[in-house]
């Protein structure tokens, strides 16, 4: 399979690789996929509670090059957006930006799911008030 230049670039120079302490109240963690499916994505956001702006994002991905690129791109897009704006990121935006072929669409879906899961986790923590127990899906 030939990869687009952008996929190759994200694969060679993945942006924002890493992990935050998932027990922190200002961190939302989304972990989606399953090892049996060949893809697991962990995406984390750090949110400024006062402004609702995502100030930092990090990822780790087990999956194909397109999955790695999708999550790397997602972290770039997330930074500087508010939580509500972040919810508007669609997998099709990722498909277009990375020129993913049809068989790789599910990798972008996974990235969208990871964004949503991270935001859900953050919101759940906020709703709960105090730093919530870390939830691993």
């Amino acid at each position, binding site marked *: *399979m030939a*990869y687009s230049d952008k996929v*190759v670039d994200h*694969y060679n120079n*993945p942006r924002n*690789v890493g*992990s935050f302490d998932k027990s922190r109240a200002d961190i939302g963690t989304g*972990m*989606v*996929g*399953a*090892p*049996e*499916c*060949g*893809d*697991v*994505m*962990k995406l984390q956001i750090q949110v400024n509670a006062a402004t609702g702006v995502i100030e930092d994002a990090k990822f*780790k*991905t*087990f*999956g*194909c*090059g397109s*999955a*790695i690129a999708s999550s790397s791109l997602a972290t770039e897009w997330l930074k500087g957006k508010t939580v509500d704006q972040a919810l508007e990121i669609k997998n099709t935006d990722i498909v277009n930006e990375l020129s993913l072929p049809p*068989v790789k669409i*599910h990798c972008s*879906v*996974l990235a969208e*799911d990871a964004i949503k*899961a991270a935001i859900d986790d953050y919101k759940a923590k906020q709703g709960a008030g105090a730093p919530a127990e870390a939830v*691993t*899906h």
Partner: protein
Amino acid sequence: MKPIYFDNHATTPVDPRVLEAMLPYFTEHFGNAASRNHSYGWTAEDAVEKARKQIASLVGATSKEIVFTSGATESNNLAIKGVAEMYAEKGNHIITAATEHKATLDTCKHLEKKGCRITYLPVKGDGLIDLDMLRDAITEKTILVSLMYANNEIGVVQPIAEIGKLCKEKGVLFHTDAVQACGKIPVNVIADGVDLLSLSAHKMYGPKGVGALYVRRKGPRVQLTAQMDGGGHERGMRSGTLNVPGIAGLGAACEISQNDMPTESVRLRGLRDRLRATLEANLEEVYINGSMEHRLPHNLNMSFAYVEGESLLMGINDIAVSSGSACTSATLEPSYVLKALGLGDDMAHTSIRFGIGRFNTEEEVDYVAKKMIDVVNKLRELSPLWEMFKEGIDLSKVQWTAH
């Protein structure tokens, strides 16, 4: 620079000596081997008969027992369908195994739709079949056992001589797909008790699109219903004008492999073991798939836990290998061979098959090993599973959101 070729189970380059043997039969000696009335035909026929001897010699058969085909897919089809039709009155039951090549499995599926009963034997964790299970599976209705000599993904070599002996005892015909074994390890249809054997030129440094089926003539005399009707070539078993240059190439490939096997197999085993040792010394959490003891000398199949296969291939794009990962397959299913060994899908996704060949060098092995180590380490830094493993989390206990 061209990628280093470590995918010799998929196909092999044509050996220059093989090409040399083929060339005269394109433009100079282009005759039809079936033309009986002039020297063009005789020359072509001589080439075909020479190749028949070379092939027969490699597998311990006689010339008359070799039927030329377009490759092993056709050989397997002819053997299995040919027996099923010819012996339909005797029975309709065929035994094969879950780890066979698609050319065997899909042929059996086809026959299943036509009313045959097929037993797909499971394999043990090391990839070998259980002989007692085979014995128990044979019934009065069984007409054929079809089990491969060596597997194309994990290189595991089945106990062919024991299977042959058992089939003889039970009066059942035995076909083996020996594509990956021929020319690599000693194969002998007499010692192994094989009645039908498939081989293919392009897996042994010959050209693509030509192969052969060995069909036993004595003790028992095996009969087949032709699957290709026409001019009655190959004693009626396979009509069609013979691919003379291809056949000359297959013959030469067999002769070269037979002569070189004692030294070549030792050299390739050395390279394979060197690759394995370097990987194991420098990486944790790597697992060999399939028996190391009953294995082709040039095969290594390893799972690199917590690193998905396609992303691994992407990182080693100057090396040609293949992976059992679903992401690399058109069906998005992980390797059925690895799954048949009882490997979890998670491990199948992280597997890489290395097939070392005649033209690979020690420098290449060292390069591949180093590159693999670098890329695996890099991708593990990226892997949430690796992170969890390092934190001591039991991944099998995590509730995943499968999608």
